[in-house]
């Protein structure tokens, strides 16, 4: 939507829910004077200034911390890197889908973090650690591009239908991207163990290549490709 230079009122509808006092969630309408270059996070801050009962998470304001993932007009994104000029009013802002709501846009991400933890997101060595850093060729380093940049915002996993249906068993795109990040790291020495851990019908193979994760990643990462790499490596291991 084209935006003029001055301030313009824009309509927002925000998901409001306080589980301790509200019997059910509701959408509340607000109007914000939007300025050129304004991000959705700024608009949410303006709403909060007007109505301090409204809760949402945010921190860095520049797409680094990953704390302000929200669902806007049906699509997950980071509020701080989403220009309001790109949104169609009334802008409907909801919490990320499928997660228990703590309050308003604040959701409980514990399960998502547990899935991340379950892939052992650290380098594993069988050899004793050397005195100096473990060296990597530039080609090996390149393998990690598109994997290490994840900021764990959860936009991908919470827009993945397979994660909605089986969040306790399917690891979800974020954790699988992380698994690939360590499986493909030349310095890691637990490749076979990591691949074995992904076997079975759920952890990895609930992914049906729907690619909702790729569409929403604010860092432009491609979990589907990483999942494909994991499957290919498992296949190579098996034959």
């Amino acid at each position: 939507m084209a935006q003029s230079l001055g301030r313009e009122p824009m309509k927002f509808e925000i998901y409001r829910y306080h589980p301790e006092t509200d019997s059910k969630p509701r959408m509340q309408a607000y109007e914000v004077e939007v300025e050129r270059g304004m991000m959705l996070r700024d608009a949410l801050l303006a709403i909060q200034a007007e109505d301090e009962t409204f809760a949402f998470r945010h921190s860095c304001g520049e797409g680094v911390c990953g704390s302000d993932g929200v669902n806007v007009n049906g699509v997950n994104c980071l509020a701080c890197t989403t220009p309001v000029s790109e949104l169609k009013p009334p802008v409907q802002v909801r919490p990320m889908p499928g997660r228990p709501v703590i309050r308003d846009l604040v959701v409980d991400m514990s399960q998502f973090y547990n899935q991340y933890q379950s892939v052992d997101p650290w380098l594993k060595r069988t050899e004793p650690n050397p005195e100096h850093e473990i060296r990597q060729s530039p080609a090996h380093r390149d393998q990690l591009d598109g994997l290490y940049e994840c900021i764990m915002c959860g936009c991908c996993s919470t827009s993945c239908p397979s994660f909605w249906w089986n969040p306790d068993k399917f690891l979800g795109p974020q954790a699988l991207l992380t698994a690939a990040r360590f499986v493909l790291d030349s310095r890691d020495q637990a490749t076979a163990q990591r691949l074995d851990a992904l076997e079975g019908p759920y952890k990895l193979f609930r992914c049906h290549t729907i690619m909702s994760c790729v569409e929403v990643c604010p860092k432009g990462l491609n979990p589907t490709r990483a999942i494909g790499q994991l499957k290919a490596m498992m296949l190579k291991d098996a034959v």
Partner: protein
Amino acid sequence: MSRQASGLQAWAVQRLTAIYLGGFFIYLIVAVLLDPPASVELWRARFGGVASVAWLLFVLALCWHAWIGIRDVVLDYIHPPVWRLSALVAFGGGLVACALWGFKIILLAAGG
């Protein structure tokens, strides 16, 4: 079903059977378009010899592919164990019956 069969193997079989099904469909369409069998006898001839093996494989691939697909849907959407088991047994049994029926048709056509 072993642990292997439930994850990677199912995924690989799904892809292999898809390739066979795709190839066989193309062959069928081309064969019927280029040389449409004029009579029942000529149709039957298409099921004899090597062709009968290809047809049997086709039915097997079709049912196996369908099984993996339906199992995926059930694992995604049906969570209570009793319902899940019932659904798997019903679909699995149905597919086995279809496969046997298909085999019978092919073998009768090939033998007759």
